[in-house]
């Protein structure tokens, strides 16, 4: 049986996928995950999840973010105003980065 492993580097961080292990049950999966994925890279906590329990939807079947123009829901669209406060500017910067990662122009 294959278990997907998610590692959290420090308290408060997100658990992110880092690989998988073969194991006959949950207890063994936790032990193997510790050995294989918690040994060198920083680890504060690990999750193991049966691979069968992970459902996937990929870009072939879904239009992530939609296929029509949705610029109205991005802060960058509203260019006639300057962000009112630092947290608004931070949010806009995060959105711009996400847009760039998505390959939006």
């Amino acid at each position, binding site marked *: 049986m294959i278990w997907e492993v998610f590692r959290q580097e420090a308290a408060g961080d997100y658990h992110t996928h880092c690989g998988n292990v073969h194991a006959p049950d949950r207890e063994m999966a936790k032990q193997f995950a510790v050995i294989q994925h918690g040994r060198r890279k920083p680890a504060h906590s690990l999750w193991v999840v049966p691979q069968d329990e992970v459902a996937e939807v990929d870009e072939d079947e879904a239009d992530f973010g939609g296929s029509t123009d949705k610029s109205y829901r991005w802060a960058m669209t509203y260019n006639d105003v300057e962000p009112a*406060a630092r*947290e608004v500017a931070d949010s806009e910067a995060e*959105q711009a980065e*996400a847009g760039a990662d998505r390959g939006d122009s």
Partner: protein
Amino acid sequence: MDIAEVRDRAGPREFNAGDDMPEEYREAATRMIQFHANSEIMGAYLERPFVRQAPSLDRKLAFSAKVQDEIGHGQLLYRAAESLGVKTRDEMLDELANGEGKFLNCFHYPMDSWAETPMIAFFVDGAAMRRQATLKSSSWEPYAHAMDKVCFEEGFHVKHGEDILRELMNGSRKEQRMVQDAFDEWWPRIVQFFGPTDDDSTHHGFAEEVGLKQMTNDQLRSAFLNAYVPKAEQYGLEIPEYPRIEERDDGTYEVRESDLDWDEFFAIAKNDYEPGVGQIDGRARTQEAVEWVRGVLDEREQAAGTTAAAAD
């Protein structure tokens, strides 16, 4: 874990569902996050009519996306609250419907005209974002994680709200006057958004000691006024004379609390204020009307559970 240890360890994102948290912490965190979740939902209901009433297609699309975001924020926050093990999501939604659930003062007032929309979409959302940015450092990790996503999305809301304000204040005399009237009416409520001065705030001390919140009401209000008073003035809005607001030497602001209507504020805090009661009941009726959707989902979940158990 006992309270002393919680106080000692209380740092940003320090605790999660894997920690054995004392009852007092779990109840305080539930109260705070449930209030926040309820506010997202009630704010969305207040803005929903403007999907229909928007003056252009662009505004309609943006309002529709925003209302959808706010409902999503409510969902995230009920999950974060649920993870404390005190109340289930169903219990919290029922409390909101039957009038026990508390939420932000500003969402108890009706909003009737398009000229009022920047009051919520710019000023109230801006105030909320000021607060939410500090809550990214809350000691309850699921709450802080919810704030990451909420703040990521809110930049659009606040800038869109400001764009409406900019457009109206560059419009006709009548539009400008309507916005000023709305501002005169909403400004005291917006100043009250952060609640009473620290000394009068019932729950603050404990929440700060255990790291649930990071800044005091006064600090947040001051930071908000610092950023948003100049914005109001930039667009030609006149700041109402009352409540009197004085700038201190260190650049922070002091609000004359006696100029504000605290009887109304505390009636609202008890869900006793009439327009707010109507809005709570309105939402309860909507929730009731889509009961069949939840019924279908529950049936499916139960059926799936039976199949999975049979397969084992």
